[in-house]
């Protein structure tokens, strides 16, 4: 694993922002750090970028100790929520900044810098806007410039701090797809901070859920959704109702309704956490009928494999340990949005 974080701890004036965090990120992986605000996501990101030092723990990349390296030596690209573009520089100068400030000797020639800038402008689909100032761009365009600027230094690790947090829902969704597309093209190892579960599940190869400075669970979106390690994770991913029940002799009883308890269920009083999409309504004859429709799932479609009736025929009880179903790995072969679509998004986002 190129990025390895061990036992990372950080406190601010008695407040524990990070509590013994351990995390591994694989080569070329797209990992989302998901958690409510105050869970330590941004602190973790800042430590990786070299903007903060932890109180204890280790961060290593490709075997190198990150914590003793300067940000320049780390070669980490960071994209801020509010873009942090250099307001007095044009788009082209913004993108070229990381190359221009390299010490003489490591600095590419002017022609090379210009070539790299136009290559990146093409990648983020902002050709023709290189002479504009950040204030003359829409939010979505600014964030794409910020990404191009971060990619210009050919980072070994790309960090994104709620990059779409300041954008409206439509632009967000378009940019999200586009970001995944860029990731697939560049293959750079990426860590993405968000508090939006839909965004994390849609984008990431794996999602790490943070709560109060601790990692609750790290798993693929589908695993996370189907096998949450804790009530918090299940609840945080959304769409669940919690019902009090009891398990006696392998039978789950909830409000007068009885069903076989899943394997490994705890015995005694339990909380049944169910998502609407796992319930199928029937007419009471015991046959759910062929037109029983599961409710709409918040899990992005790339992780869903079931059409109507494809799931089990009865409501499945899942006290945090649902029966395992084979995950659909359509995720890895999911087609990316065509380029035209992103372009349209860019134009629509313009003022």
């Amino acid at each position, binding site marked *: 694993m190129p990025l390895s974080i061990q036992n990372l701890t950080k406190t601010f004036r008695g407040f524990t922002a990070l509590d013994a965090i351990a995390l591994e990120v694989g080569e070329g992986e797209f990992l989302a750090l998901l958690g409510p605000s105050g869970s330590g996501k941004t602190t973790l990101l800042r430590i990786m970028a070299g903007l903060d030092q932890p109180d204890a723990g280790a961060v290593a990349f490709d075997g190198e100790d990150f914590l003793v390296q300067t940000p320049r030596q780390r070669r980490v690209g960071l994209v801020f929520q509010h873009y942090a573009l250099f307001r*007095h520089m044009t788009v082209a100068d913004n993108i070229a900044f990381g190359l221009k*400030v390299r010490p003489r000797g490591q600095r590419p020639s002017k022609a090379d810098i210009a070539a790299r800038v136009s290559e990146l402008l093409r990648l983020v689909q902002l050709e023709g806007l290189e002479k504009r100032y950040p204030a003359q761009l829409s939010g979505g365009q600014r964030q794409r410039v910020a990404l191009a600027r971060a990619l210009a230094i050919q980072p070994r690790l790309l960090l994104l701090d709620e990059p779409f947090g300041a954008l409206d829902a439509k632009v967000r969704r378009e940019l999200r797809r586009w970001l995944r597309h860029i990731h697939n093209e560049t293959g750079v190892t990426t860590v993405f901070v968000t508090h939006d579960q839909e965004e994390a599940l849609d984008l990431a190869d794996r999602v790490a859920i943070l709560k109060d400075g601790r990692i609750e669970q790290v798993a693929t979106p589908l695993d996370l959704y189907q096998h949450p390690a804790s009530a918090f994770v299940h609840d945080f991913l959304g769409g669940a109702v919690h019902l009090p029940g009891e398990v006696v002799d392998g039978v789950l009883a909830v409000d007068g309704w009885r069903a076989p308890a899943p394997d490994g269920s705890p015995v005694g009083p339990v909380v049944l956490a169910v998502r609407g999409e796992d319930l199928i309504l029937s007419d009471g004859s015991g046959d759910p009928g062929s037109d029983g429709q599961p409710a709409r799932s918040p899990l992005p479609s790339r992780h869903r494999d079931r059409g109507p009736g494809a799931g089990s025929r009865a409501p499945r009880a899942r006290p945090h340990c649902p029966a395992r179903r084979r995950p659909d790995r359509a995720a890895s072969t999911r087609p990316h949005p065509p380029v035209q679509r992103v372009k349209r998004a860019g134009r629509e986002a313009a003022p």
Partner: protein
Amino acid sequence: MSAVRRSPVRGLAPLLIGVALLWLALVVLLPLGMVFAEAFRRGLDGFLDAFSEPDAWSAVRLTLLVAAISVPLNALFGLAAAWCITRYEFRGKALLTTLIDLPFSVSPVISGLVWVLLFGTAGWFAPLLDALGVRVIFTVTGLVLATILVTLPFVARELIPLMQQQGADEELAAVTLGAGPWAIFSRVTLPNVRWALLYGVLLCNARAMGEFGAVSVVSGHIRGLTNTLPLHVEILYNEYDFVGAFATATVLASLALVTLLIKSLLEWRFADELAATRRH
């Protein structure tokens, strides 16, 4: 009239504009006009007479010298103070911010007097200065110290609100892109505040050249040696040389007008860039 009225009261705007213009004419334009009118009361020859004596020229030179020393120093200090206050958290930050404002609220006479109390013949450091053979009061050094104290807040006060509003994100972005401290300062911080810095420097300069009270206390009014332009004006006036006093005063007034002109020209020349960077 524009389609959108911002005030609920009809016809109030012309009235308010009229009152403001009248007041401005009364307290700014009229006195300024008087200065020029009085200076030329005995024609161009009378006006030029005021500059025939060497003391007048030495006053001009001294004023420029004092400003040339104190303005850059206070520009540097203002930048450092604003950087420190807006980019770091530390104990006593509120106190430092208040201290920077202090020269604004203290009478300039006091700002001059403190140097006499410190470095005068009966001052705290008098024995030390005597032993070293250095004199501060009644010398150019004293004038510079008094001017620095009085003009200390101008640059810092311009920069602090702007740098607070802009935040440190751009500098942090520069750090992650591999920029060193100097590159961050010269390519990110300084360009972002250059207009506020320039404005602060112009204000600081205007005050440095025009300061009377503090400078008067430490100067000793030695003609040709420690008389700045404002002090020279007072001396001439006290000697009933009204034309000479007003003629010299036109130099000061012109310096102020030129300052204003430069500022307006720069704002006009870089209007696009200003608009672009402010809207961000």
